[in-house]
């Protein structure tokens, strides 16, 4: 204020003092309320449209149609999936059946058992190692009764 000069701060004071009147605010409130209402109404309109379509009578139809559509889309995929699973199992079965079964040859060896029944008796089996079978079963017996086999 000194020496009558106008400063930037003075201009800013003018700007700060610049405010709308109560009448302007009343108009502001009215328009804001109008915008809010129109926003709510437009939202409700969309909701009403949606729920209008999905009325109870039509809901069942739409649900049925929806399920049918889902079924039409997913059923082939499901069936295809099952078929794939079945064919996979079939492959396994085929592979299992095509695999040659092991040839089994049984060789019997008679354990030579000592005459003393209470003594610890080593058991040995004489293997017919020259045989070309895949599995060998070794039968052993503590008693000599196996010899009658």
């Amino acid at each position, binding site marked *: 204020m000194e020496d009558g000069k106008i400063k930037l701060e003075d201009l800013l004071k003018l700007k700060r003092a610049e405010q*709308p009147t109560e009448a302007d605010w009343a108009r502001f409130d009215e328009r804001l309320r109008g915008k809010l209402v129109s926003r709510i109404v437009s939202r409700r309109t969309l909701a009403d449209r949606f729920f209008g379509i999905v009325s109870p009578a039509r809901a069942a139809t739409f649900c049925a149609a929806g399920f049918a559509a889902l079924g039409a889309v997913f059923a082939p995929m499901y069936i295809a999936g099952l078929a794939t699973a079945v064919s996979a199992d079939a492959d396994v079965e085929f592979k299992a059946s095509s695999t040659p079964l092991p040839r089994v040859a049984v060789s019997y060896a008679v354990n030579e058992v000592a005459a003393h029944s209470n003594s610890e008796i080593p058991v040995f089996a004489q293997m017919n190692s020259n045989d070309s079978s895949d599995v060998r079963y070794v039968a052993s017996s503590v008693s000599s009764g196996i010899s009658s086999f």
Partner: protein
Amino acid sequence: MSIAKTEVGVDGKVAENWRPKAADADMLLVERVKAGDSLAFDELTKKYRQRLYSAVYNMVSNREDAMDIVQDAFIKAFSSINSFRGGSAFYTWLYRIAINMAITFIKRNRLRRFFSFENANEEMAPAEILDRLTVNYGGERSTMLNELKEKLNEALQTLSIKHRTVFVLFEIEALSHQEIAQITGTSEATVRTRLHYAKQQLQAILKDYLK
């Protein structure tokens, strides 16, 4: 639209005692709005419409546009009130919405700019400034008052959006550096730098009018 002196102190500065109480009171109102109480929203609107309007008007320099932007800002705030978690003060959140909308508006309407201007009401101008104008311009005081306001508006529009935002929020809205940093999403140092630059620019533009 005329000028009224509302919520502005004798010295022309916005009353600054509203902040501390505002945050707590606002949170209560926000909770009520979240619970569906529309009266609480009305209270928030009445509480902040003037500050938001002032900030937006000084950015866009058009009263009707400023009114529209502030209304839309309130609607946006209302519709997204559930996203407000209270991490910052409600008014900074609200300012941020309004300022962002004003910036979007300015960018969209770069080529279509016209500023509303009206004659200043001398009754609302601070007396000390009127005295100075009388000393300097005598009978042409009123004309000069209008011209000064017009020139200041024009000068503000020459600032970039970033500088204008910071300048308006600090010098006219009397927000702190920290609050402006929150609103603009920048650091306080950036706010200070922009403010300094904006003042220099305005001083240079208005040098013929600032004696």
